[in-house]
């Protein structure tokens, strides 16, 4: 994680205070900076506050946090479970790690408040096993300040799908991190059959801030609109890494200070492996908030912004990502196992300039059949990525397929 001058002043944010490069914020600083956590009497008001704040889930699905907590509070008999999702299986994303490692007490605040509000007597910190610093930091924070409920840390397997909501619950219940058929969803029946709040660690951290400062503060925190503050991860830039931003800020203003320039940018991958491509022109003025992005046919997802330079081949990266997604399939459903694998193989051939026009025709056809035919949304993400690559890199696909040349390599094709 590199320290970078933030694009705007975020003096009120999650990462105000101790700089990112200086390691985890300890309990003393945390309490000094933010003040005490609201007491149990204020619990009643938290759900309305969250709903008013418009805080959306930051794991990728973007579901309103207040509404989620409400639906569990309604069905909880005091034995609900809070599962803080810090699996962060998306390879390009680093923001959950940043939040867990550097602001562990903010996460624990969120967990404690959530438990109080939804009526949970148990919390699980579901942390990607490979995120060792994050695990250490949270374990230390828990030791510094034990919570008044049963808390355990569960190591999430290092698989892309392990962070999916039903997969997390499945792993905690049965040691198998594969998504399950829904319904029932975790909020109805999750860990141990009890209503379970599966919430991203960043969402929990911001919920903690909103509990202290109110929904008005959150809505006013960004000069660019009412969407508050949030985390993104920048990649493909000179200074990559996690950043806190004012939501709604234009993408160009966010990536600029990290070393990117529109003139040298060909396209931007927004949302990670589960996301979509956009041209540099589209992307630069794009307001980084879920509503605006949805209107533009994109999705905020987990906040990954990956810049592709004018000298790089977008097909190469797309092919690589599709190969990864195919390999990371939970392999429970035929269309994903066979369809996605076939698409990844053909796309890989095309990207490597050993494919044929037939390959291209096939991935266009197969790509249109991928969405909505699995038990989880994994193939849908791949389909979205593929379709967006056709839109943005259409000519390049044609060139790779017909003449087996790449605009970005200038080399003749290698033999099939």
């Amino acid at each position: 994680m590199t320290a970078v001058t933030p694009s705007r002043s975020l003096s009120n944010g999650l990462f105000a205070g101790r700089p990112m490069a200086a390691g985890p914020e300890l309990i003393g600083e945390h309490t000094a900076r933010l003040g005490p956590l609201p007491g149990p009497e204020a619990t009643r008001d938290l759900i309305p506050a969250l709903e008013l704040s418009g805080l959306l889930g930051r794991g990728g699905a973007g579901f309103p946090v207040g509404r989620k907590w409400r639906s569990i509070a309604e069905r909880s008999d005091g034995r609900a479970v809070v599962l803080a999702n810090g699996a962060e299986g998306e390879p390009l994303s680093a923001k959950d790690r940043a939040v867990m490692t550097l602001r562990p007490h903010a996460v624990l605040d969120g967990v404690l408040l959530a438990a109080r509000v939804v009526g949970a007597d148990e919390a699980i910190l579901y942390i990607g096993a490979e995120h060792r610093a994050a695990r250490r930091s949270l374990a230390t924070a828990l030791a510094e300040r034990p919570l008044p409920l049963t808390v355990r840390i569960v190591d999430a397997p290092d698989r892309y799908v392990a962070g999916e909501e039903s997969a997390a619950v499945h792993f905690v219940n049965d040691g198998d991190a594969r998504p399950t058929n829904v319904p029932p969803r975790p909020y109805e029946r999750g860990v141990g059959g009890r209503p379970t709040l599966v919430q991203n660690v960043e969402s929990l951290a911001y919920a903690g801030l909103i509990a202290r400062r109110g929904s008005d503060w959150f809505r006013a925190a960004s000069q660019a609109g009412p969407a508050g503050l949030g985390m993104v991860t920048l990649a493909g830039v000179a200074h990559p890494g996690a950043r806190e931003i004012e939501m709604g800020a234009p993408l160009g203003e966010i990536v600029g200070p990290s070393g990117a320039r529109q003139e040298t940018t060909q396209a931007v991958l927004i949302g990670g492996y589960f996301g979509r491509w956009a041209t540099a022109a589209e992307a630069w003025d794009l307001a980084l908030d879920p509503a605006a992005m949805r209107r533009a046919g994109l999705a905020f997802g987990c906040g990954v912004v990956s810049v592709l330079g004018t000298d790089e081949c977008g097909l190469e990266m797309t092919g690589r990502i599709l190969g990864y997604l195919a390999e990371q399939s939970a392999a429970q459903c035929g269309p994903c196992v066979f369809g996605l694998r076939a698409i990844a193989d053909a796309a890989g051939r095309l990207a490597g300039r050993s494919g044929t026009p037939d390959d291209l025709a096939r991935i266009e056809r197969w790509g249109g059949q991928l969405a909505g035919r699995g038990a989880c949304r994994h193939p849908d993400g791949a389909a979205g990525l593929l379709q967006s690559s056709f839109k943005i890199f259409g000519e390049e696909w044609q060139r790779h397929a017909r003449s087996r040349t790449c605009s970005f390599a200038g080399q003749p094709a290698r033999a099939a």
Partner: protein
Amino acid sequence: MSDQILWFATRGAGVVSLLLFTAVMVLGILAVMRWQSPAWPRFLSVGLHRNLALLSVVFLAIHIVTAIVDPFTSLGLVAAAIPFASSYRPFGVGLGVIAVDIFLALVATSLLRDWIGQRTWRAVHWLAYASWPLALVHGVESGSDASTPWLIGLELACVAAVLAAAGWRLAAGRSNRSRLATVAAGAALSTRTSRRGI
């Protein structure tokens, strides 16, 4: 003559039952092997398998009831219900009783599949491979036509059919549905353990 009718019915229904069971076995294997041709869609194997199995219940019932009711056999309800409890060819009849018990379990679980779930149903259904040979040996051991050429020929044909079908299934190994299963096993394993990613 009328005394003989029950005896004929028992033997006749028994033979028909065996033929139907054989067809049901072969069709079941065709179904699981996903065999099809332009003139024979997959649903035909599945549908016939089911319907012939239900039909064979009728012939089985005739076979058993006439055997019990027939005054010339010393078979009573006890012999029909409890294996090896008959005084007439206890071994042969006993095998038949076991075969019927398994068969009834197969039918019952299939009719109730919606309620008991796929896994339980499948576990019980494997017993079909035990039930059929028992029925065949029962026919050989306890039937009174056992030495007639036509019956021997029939039985050999049934054995050949089932052996061929079962052999085909065995030879195909796990290739049929295992593509997904093999990939899935790998994915399942890695979602249980933590290991470094790509």
